[in-house]
């Protein structure tokens, strides 16, 4: 093979692999990316039952209770406009408390309860889920009023 040809073959090989990876990634991202919902968005247009999504909002004050097994909790997450009941089995993150922000990973169950497989609470005292930090001031005030 001529050197020119060899270089061309290498470049084509690399391009095919990279474009292939890109297309594959784009296809997978369309199908697999889990979307982020706030409660009002989830109430207005719920995702299909069982599809992995994230739900972010404030833990409603007074809504947190533990089921008899001692490790399953139920609570409601609100954003000032809608409420979504959430069920979670596991040890809650250190900074998970009522009236605080939370992002729950999981899927909507058939009865409208959000079944969380993972809770992301704030990581340190300054942390807030970024999605919540961007709620506008009115929403934030309402949320605070509601959760107090």
């Amino acid at each position: 093979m001529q050197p020119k040809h060899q270089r061309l073959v290498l470049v084509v090989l690399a391009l095919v692999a990279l474009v292939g990876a890109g297309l594959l990634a784009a296809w997978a991202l369309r199908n697999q990316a889990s979307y982020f919902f706030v409660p009002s968005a989830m109430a207005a247009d719920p995702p299909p039952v069982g599809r992995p999504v994230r739900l972010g909002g404030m833990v409603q004050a007074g809504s947190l209770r533990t089921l008899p097994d001692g490790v399953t909790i139920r609570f409601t997450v609100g954003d000032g406009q809608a409420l979504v009941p959430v069920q979670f089995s596991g040890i809650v993150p250190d900074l998970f408390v009522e009236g605080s922000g939370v992002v729950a990973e999981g899927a909507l169950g058939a009865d409208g309860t959000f079944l969380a497989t993972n809770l992301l609470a704030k990581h340190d005292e300054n942390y807030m889920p970024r999605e919540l930090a961007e709620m506008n001031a009115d929403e934030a005030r309402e949320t605070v009023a509601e959760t107090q």
Partner: protein
Amino acid sequence: MIAELGLAALWLAAALAGLQLLGGIAVLRDGEALLGQMVRPAAQLQAVLCALSFAALLYLFAVTDLSVALVAGNSHSAKPAIFKLAGAWGNHEGSMLLWVSVMALAGGLIAAVERRLPERTLSATLAAQAWVGLGFYAFLLLSSNPFARLDPAPPEGTGLNPLLQDIGLALHPPVLYLGYVGLSVAFSFAVGAMLTREVTPAFARVMRPWVLGAWVALTLGITAGSYWAYYELGWGGWWFWDPVENASLMPWLAATALLHSAGVLAARDALRTWTLMLGVVAFSMSMIGTFLVRSGILTSVHAFAVDPERGTFILALLALYIGGALALFALRAGTVLEGERFAPVSREGGLVINNVALSAILGIVLLGTLYPLLTEALGFRVSVGPPYFNPVGAIFFLPAMAMLAVGPLLRWRRDTLARIRWQVLAIAAAFGAALLAAVLAGIALLPLLGMALAAAVALGSVLPLVRRRLRHAPLTLWGTVLAHLGVAVAVFGMSADSAFTAERLVALRVGEETSVGPWRVILANVEPVAGPNWTALSARLAVSYSGAEPTLIHPQARSFWAPAQQTSESALLTRWNGQLYAVMGGQAAGEDAGRWQLRLWWKPFVTCIWYGGGLIALGGLLALVGHLATDLRRWRRGRA
């Protein structure tokens, strides 16, 4: 006074970097320029001043000088001494100063010892290094001065985030930074070589130790970071595809590809432009990583010290350096002379496939990491996680593993598969046997393929040692063998963890028992304990493996008071065949008061993940020592 001296040293170092840049430009324009003679001394003096500046910051943290804003914001007089020192780099300003210091030290070292490259190329390299350094100096001096005073000084500091008060995490950033900075040196060499069009095997040999060193540090950093996340965050997972984790994985993938292509350039004078390109890409990946971590632009579970304004600054640096280097590459790539040819079936051919697969994986991780940013610009939110990365990454990871098993058996230049028929058959047999065993054990698809490939790679990586006299095998060969074996061990650990993990979540009263996998677990007691700056509730768990004598382990729920924060300390019990992992939650509420939440995992062979990472790093280290020893011998012979 010390703070002001530290700041002055930093300004002087920045000025010297400016001089170094001008000197390098002068050499490029006129090889005999007087200013050009300043380049080496400037680089060395800059290293000394930068080191002094960082030493000043260490001192301020050691004595907890609260009149310095950075110390007041990140330290506390009651903190253990080691964490006081670690506080110096456990924050944004300090870590940037560490970055610049390591980079200046690397530049000083090159200026002091490197004699193999043409003087013009070396000056261009040091100028490129100063050019990168200047951006970071500007960043520190103009937007994040680590020595800023706080007036009046507060009576007490706010403390360091308790999650960071851990020896693993205290040492983790400097190791990772060694990796990032090592790649900046490789970048400078690539830019220097592009400027003078001197892309030779000698250039690859000069660059390779830096890439190797960076790669070893990145490997150790990623391994340690993964283990830290595993035991400290208490979720029992070792990889999350979090943007911050990906930020360290992406430069590692690029550095792995660069390491192998530099090897081809050094040994066979092929892949010239490709190696230059990877030199640019690898450092670009560390910059993108820094940007992701520091800007807080992506939601991350471990994003500490985030500040969008700084993110913008890093983004500007990123555009300047990566854009500039890519433009230079576009201008010069065509004029770099053609390298040597080789046959598709050869060591080089295998390494090209390895490079393409690694680049594809890098592209997949990069796309998945940045995709949420893209869609956010379009107005909808997406988070990308394991359901994307695992299967899509596996499509390119599996052929890369297959190549890793067979490639090292091939000869340089030209080879035939017929020559290595028996070895390939043996590897295929190992793959088949492991596959069969895994199918019989009823394992899910990805872990099943992972285990079979781990067996094949393990065999393939030791085969090059067969029929060699082991004591005479070069260190670099041992390095390759160990690093590849490490990949097999790590992949086996990952597959075993996802295939065999048993989990149990319970709420127990004191005296009650439960089980997880082959373990019997009794909650013997819950008692309060106190540490230097925390108090905790500590559970005493009596755990026994398959009816053997019980052992006590102590998961804790800790409360720190500065800052006020709760963390859970998991308890780990390591056996040869796996780890028992216990986390203590709170007391169950309501009528169940008196029951304690416990989460238990039995993770067979999970430790192989980190042993594998350690082996990979050890392999890299042996190869580095081997190369340096060869260089030293050549140098001695040259002088004799």
